[in-house]
C-alpha cells in the first residue's frame, strides 16, 4: 500500500524534474505578484508590513491556481489517468499520492522562497515565523481543494478559468484564518488557536478530499 | 394604514429611493428568472417539434423514393 504511494510520488517527481519550468514558473509568478504590490502601493515599511500577510497569501493562492493545470491534465491527455483508475488500489489513495507530490513541487518551493518575500515586505521575524507556519499548514489544504477543482474540470476544454471560479471561493477560510494568525503574531498575541483551526481543516481535507477527487475523476474520465 | 397619502407612501419617510430601489430590483430579478424559465421550456419543446417534423419529412421522402 505505502509502496504504491511512494511509487506514484517518485514517478511524479521524476516527470516534473524532466520539465523544470513547470516547477519554477509558479514560483516566479509568486515572486513577481508580490513585487508588484510595493510598486503599486508605495514603499512605506509600516504599510507594507501591515499588508504583507494578505499579499503573500493571495499571491500564494494565485500561484497555486496556476500550477493546478498540470496536476491531472497531462495524464488525462496521454491516457495514464485511465491507467491509474484501472490499478488494483483505491483511487482515493493514488490521487492522494499525486496531490502530495504536487504539494512537494509547488507548495514547498513557496515555503522556501517566503523568507525573501518577507524581507521585501519588511516583515518582522516573529511575524514571518507565523507566516511560515500558516503556509506550511495552509498550502497542503490548497493543493487538496484545488485537486478537487482540477479533477472536476480536467475533461473540459476551457477548464482553467472555471477552476479558479470554483476553487477561489472555497479557499477563503484558509486565507482568513492564515492572515488572522499572522496579524495576531504581529500584535504579539498567541495564534496557536488559529493554527489549530487550520490544522483541523488540514486533517478534515486530508480525510475527505481524496474521495471527492476520486469521484470527480470518475466523472471526468468517462 | 401607516401612511396618510399616496405621496407619503411613495416618499417612505424619506427613504423612498432605497425602498423602491430594492423592491424594484427584486421584482425585476424575479421576473427575469420566471421569464427565462418559461422561455427555456418553450425552446426545448420547439426543438423537439422541429426534430419530429424533420423526421416526418425524411420518412415522407423515403416513401416517395419507394414509389418512383
Amino acid at each position, binding site marked *: 500500500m505505502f509502496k504504491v504511494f511512494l511509487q506514484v510520488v517518485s514517478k511524479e517527481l521524476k516527470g516534473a524534474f524532466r520539465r523544470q519550468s513547470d516547477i519554477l514558473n509558479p514560483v516566479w509568478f509568486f515572486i513577481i505578484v508580490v513585487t508588484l504590490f510595493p510598486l503599486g502601493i508605495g514603499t512605506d515599511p509600516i504599510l507594507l508590513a501591515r499588508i504583507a500577510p494578505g499579499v503573500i497569501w493571495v499571491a500564494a493562492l494565485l500561484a497555486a491556481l496556476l500550477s493546478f493545470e498540470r496536476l491531472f491534465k497531462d495524464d488525462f491527455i496521454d491516457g495514464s489517468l485511465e491507467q491509474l483508475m484501472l490499478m488494483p488500489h483505491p483511487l482515493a489513495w493514488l490521487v492522494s499520492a499525486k496531490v502530495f507530490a504536487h504539494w512537494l513541487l509547488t507548495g514547498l518551493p513557496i515555503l522556501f522562497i517566503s523568507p525573501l518575500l518577507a524581507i521585501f515586505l519588511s516583515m518582522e521575524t516573529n511575524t514571518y515565523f507565523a507566516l511560515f507556519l500558516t503556509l506550511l499548514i495552509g498550502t497542503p489544504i490548497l493543493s487538496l481543494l484545488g485537486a*478537487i477543482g482540477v479533477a*472536476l*474540470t480536467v*475533461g*473540459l476544454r*476551457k*477548464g482553467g478559468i*472555471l477552476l479558479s*471560479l*470554483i476553487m*477561489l*471561493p*472555497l479557499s*477563503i*477560510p484558509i486565507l*482568513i*484564518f492564515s492572515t*488572522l494568525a499572522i*496579524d495576531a503574531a504581529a500584535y504579539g498575541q498567541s495564534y496557536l488557536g488559529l493554527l489549530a483551526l487550520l490544522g483541523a*481543516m488540514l486533517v*478534515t481535507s486530508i480525510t*475527505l478530499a481524496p474521495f*471527492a477527487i476520486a*469521484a*470527480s475523476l470518475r*466523472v*471526468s474520465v*468517462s | *394604514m*401607516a*401612511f396618510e397619502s399616496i405621496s407619503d*407612501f411613495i416618499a*417612505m*419617510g*424619506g*427613504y423612498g429611493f*432605497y*425602498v423602491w*430601489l*430594492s*423592491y424594484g*430590483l*427584486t421584482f425585476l*430579478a*424575479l421576473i*427575469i*428568472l*420566471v421569464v*427565462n*424559465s*418559461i422561455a*427555456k*421550456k418553450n425552446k*426545448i*419543446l420547439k*426543438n*423537439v*417539434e422541429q*426534430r*419530429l417534423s424533420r423526421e416526418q419529412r425524411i420518412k415522407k421522402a423515403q416513401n416517395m423514393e419507394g414509389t418512383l
Partner: protein
Amino acid sequence: MWKWLHPYAKPEKSYQLAGKLLPWFVVVTVITFVVGLVWGLLFAPADYQQGDSFRIIYIHVPAAMMAMAAYSTMAIAAFIALVWQIRLAEMNIAAIAPVGAVFTFIALVTGAAWGKPMWGAWWVWDARLTSELILLFVYLGIIALYNAFSDKVLAGRAASILTLVGVINLPVIHYSVVWWNTLHQGATIMKFDKPSMAPEMLWPLMIMIVGFAAFLGSVSLLRFRNEILARESHRPWVSALVTDKLSGEK
C-alpha cells in the same frame, strides 16, 4: 412508502407530478406576495429607529433565508444523487441553483440599499453581507460547472460533487467571515440589532418568507420540468407530449 415513491424515479411520472404541484405553488406564491407586500408596505407601522427604510426587511430577510434553504435542498439532493445514483436528484440541483443564485443576489442588493441609509455606505464589509457574497460565488461556480459540460449526465454528477464540497465548506466560510469581521471591525459598523419585532411587523415578514419559499418551489418545479424535458427529449413520451400539444392547437 418505497412502493409509493418508486414510480417517481421515472422521469415521466416526476414530470407529471411536478406539473400537478406547480399550480398550487404558484397560487400560494401569488397570494402570499400580495398579502405580505400590502401588509408590509402599507399597514405595518414604521420602525421607531429606522423609519420606513426597515420595510426592505420584507424582501431582504426572506431572500437571504431562502437562498440558504435552497442550498441546503441542493446539498440533500446531491447526497441522494451520489449515494443512490438517482438522476432526478441531479436535475434538482440544476433546477434550484439559478433560483438560489437570484435570491442571493436579491439579498445582496437589498442589503446594500438598506445599508446606504443605515450605515452611510452602499457596501460595508459586514459579516452577513460578505458571506452572502461568497455564497453567490459558490452558486455561480456550480452553475458555471454545470453549464460547462455538454453531457448533462456528467454535468449533473460534477455539480453534485461540487455542491457537497461546498456544503462542508460553507459553515467554515461563514464562521471564518464572522470571526474576521469581529476582529476587523471598523468604526462605522452598526449592527442590525434584532429588534424585538412587534407582531404587526412580524406577521408580514412570516408571510413573505412563506411567499419566497413558494416562489422557490414554483420556479424550481418549472426548471425541474425543463431539465427532464431536455434530457429526455428523444424519448417517445416527450414526442407524444409535443404532438398532443400541436394537435390541441389545431
